[in-house]
């Protein structure tokens, strides 16, 4: 693997980590529940991207599937939280 790719991976991961730090500020501070749900959704999004980058770094395509699952379940998780915030119960 070329130094460029390795460097790019390190840089990308660092950027995602920083972005996640910013997300965490929203997640902790809120102020509204809607802010927090959006923040968690974004965190899932970051996690999916981290998975993709790790997949390149580890040269293993199983990580793509992990990314796929995170994407799917991120949606489900956010939908459940959103439903709760909107209606007060998850399954009516």
């Amino acid at each position, binding site marked *: 693997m070329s130094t460029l790719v390795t460097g790019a991976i*390190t840089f990308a*991961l*660092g950027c*995602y*980590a*920083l972005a*996640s*730090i910013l997300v*965490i500020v929203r*997640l*902790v501070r*809120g102020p509204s*529940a809607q802010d*927090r*749900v959006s*923040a*968690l959704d974004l*965190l*899932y999004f970051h*996690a999916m991207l*981290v*998975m993709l980058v*790790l997949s390149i770094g*580890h040269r*293993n395509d*199983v*990580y793509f*599937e*992990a990314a*796929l*699952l*995170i994407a*799917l*379940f991120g*949606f*489900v*998780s956010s*939908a*459940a*939280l*959103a*439903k*709760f*915030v*909107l*209606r*007060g*119960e*998850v*399954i*009516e």
Partner: protein
Amino acid sequence: MSLFFLLLLPFLVGLVMAVMPTRARTSLAGGASLISAGLTAWLITLYPLVRDGQVIRQTVSWIPSIGLDLILRLDGFAWMFSVLITGIGALVALYARYYMSPADPVSRFYALFLLFMSAMLGVVTSGNLIQLVVFWELTSLISFLLIGYWHHRVDAQRGARMALIVTGAGGLALLGGVIVLGHIVGSFDLDVVLGSGDRVRAHPLYAPVLILVVLGALTKSAQFPFHFWLSRAMAAPTPVSAFLHSATMVKAGVFLLARLWSVLSGTELWFWVVGGAGAATLLLGSYIAMFQHDLKRVLAYSTMSHLGLITLLLGLNSPLAAVAGVFHIMNHAAFKASLFMAAGIVDHETGTRDIRRLTGLWSRMPYTGALALVASAAMAGVPLLNGFLSKEMFFAETVFMTSQPWVERGLPVLATLAAIFAVVYSLRFGYGIFFGSPATDLPREPEEAPRWMRAPIELLVLCCLIVGMAPSVSIGPALAVAALPVVGGVLPEYSLAVWHGFTAPLYMSLIAITVGIAAYVRIRRHQRRGHLQNAPVIERFNARRLFDLGLLWLTLWARRILKVLSPARLQPQMFAIIAIALLLALLAARDLPLAWGEREQLPASAAFVLLWAIGMACAIGAAMMAKFHRLVAITLMGGAGLVTCLTFAWFSAPDLALTQISVEVVTTTLFLLGLRWLPVRLEELGVVASARTRLRRARDLLLAIAAGTGLATLSYAMLTRSAPQSISPFFLERALPEGGGTNAVNVMLVDFRALDTLGEITVLGAVALTVYALLRRFRPAAESMLAPRQQRAVPADVGTDLVGPTTVEGVARGYMGVPTVIARLLLPVMLVVAAHLFLRGHNQPGGGFVAGLVIAIAMITQYIVSGSRFVEGRTRLLPGRWVAWGLLLATCTGLGAITLGYPLLTSHTAHFAVPLLGDVHFPTATFFDLGVLFVVVGATLLMLTAIAHQSLRAHRQPSVVAAPVAHVEAP
């Protein structure tokens, strides 16, 4: 034929009968009595083999490493008991055909009946003491079910429970006694034990053994002071009483005493304990029986007293008395079983068992009357009947025994007194209800019982007569065979004859009969006038009340101890668990100081450190917010879980990451579902914590920090070491060649450690069912029954798309339109992902567990966006069936290996060529994995939807909701 056949046949047929049509009375009764009669006939053909003290012995290896074998052992005594059990069983099974009403579920009755017979045969033929105790407890359990056969009746429930508690506790004592006995002898083998009587009697632990074994025997045989359960057990159907409470189960106690007679008897302690209990029961039982008004209770108390007689005979330390005891066991079984059956006929035909209402039945049922009269005469000890013979032997023993003077003089008096009482209650039963003016106010118009209902009684009464008139020809050989093993080798001299000349026992019999008749006439006159309705003097001493009191006391103390050890509040429990764990860890650290290992460490990456900082922030935030802002805490926990998942992926464990992320979503949904029903905690209320509370919180915080730090330190110390003893190389090497898959984790789950997995999915299924069962009856707190704030905020008559939360279509068509479309499109996608994960699981990350979770999440998503009514209106998911089918599939896959001659759960990999796909390899473990998938889908859906259905119920109960509305909306 193998002796095991004797036990297995009734057992297996009983199991089959359990699933037969419940009302097939005739075929069930025919089957049960034919099998019992066949076994009786077979046993009788074995007679030459057990004659002259020979023993048939068969062994099956059970746990050879600790010297435990299944041993069946048939000597003369066991043979006699087996014939009694199967013979009377056949008669009672026939009788029950007519006794049970067409509305009774008779398949349950006959199934339990045969199972009981099997267990009882197990008790008498056991050649191993531990095995004997197992069968012993089995008879207690099945008798519990039989006494409680009419389980809708309160008296049946109470009687069954009391019998189980008393006999079960006795069985526990017996187990203790048997273990100590085995310790003394050095073997649990009955033959060895029977041969070491001198060693046992000389051992310092003899007294504890004796007390424990006798406790077991006395409880089972309803001897004083444990006699009270037998009269309560009369709530059982009469065939059960005839079988269990005359011929078999209660005889198990005296059987045990006789079985171990040659080992334990011969000491002063034996005489006082066994003889004392027997004498007390003999007198007490016959005394109380005189004043009972319920036919079956009269018989129950008389059974007690006859068992007391047998116990007393066994307690007299004389071989001759033991022979008389064995003889009376046989005689009592014959006349008492027929009396119980006669009582059942009277009850059946007249509709009552009250002696006070039953008179003059002779004209209506002469046959039954004659049979009952003869049987009760045998019970009273009238000459020319079998009861007279063994009773005379008993009298002779009391007269000729040697002991302290007051015992020598007192015992004959006691025996005569008990015989007088016996004559009185026998007359009340046999004479009182059949003679006199015919009763007019009976609940039912009595008529003679059907031909075949009387046949079993006729046969038994015939036995009583034959034995009574020609004892040495009819019963002599059998008695000799049965008594020989009891006394241990040499039979004493005895004579089985009706006439012995004018001896002291004969005078005692005559006194008993004449005084008994006179007493009966007087007592009857008093009772007609309304006096003597209860047994004088002892009516105030109620053993049942003492039992209830004891039980109450036990429950009370159990509750008190439980309150200390397991308080309902979570906080002290957690504190205790964590504090003890920490303490133990610190103690261990004293011997093994903590040190870091030398394993090579990976360089830290800035991104990873940041990632962990996020995870820690989320975790700490969740803990802080958990009290007042639960939704925030759940969101933060989602963040922490995500970081965990990324950590797994970072360190090359993608399959863990897959599982973690699936579990994370299900957990979030579960918490949100539960959150709906938790009453809100309001921070604004501003409750000020007291100084004590704050101190406690500080203490808990310190403990939590200490334990957390300790765990982290330990983990670090572990991780810095390489593990040379690790088992992972073993599995990694063998996964492909032996399991046929490259994913070692999955191969381990479904192949190498498949038995563990089978256990785990069984537990999972059981937990899911339990959650479902608990939530079915769960009603949320009144303050959270109200529809959520968000739903109440929308006025019902405003024409927005938020209207109609309770209509089937409302949720899906309204404001959730866009998410619904996405979620429905996602359903097939997620199912494909699940199929992919499942099929690939054996070789690469995936497998049944993750695939099952993905399917469950796919379905839950539909529930979330469309509501449960919408989903359940369109598909029938039946999660319970998924669990059942999954377990069945996994078990059958495992059993399949056995049918082919391999150990349970052995996997086979088939390789074959499929057009288009090429070479395919297919391990049978795939079916097992499919079972896991089914269970996971079923369990997850069952638990989550069980909570979700609360919302539907809440809306159905507007009256409960009405009250808090005003209160909440006021501010």
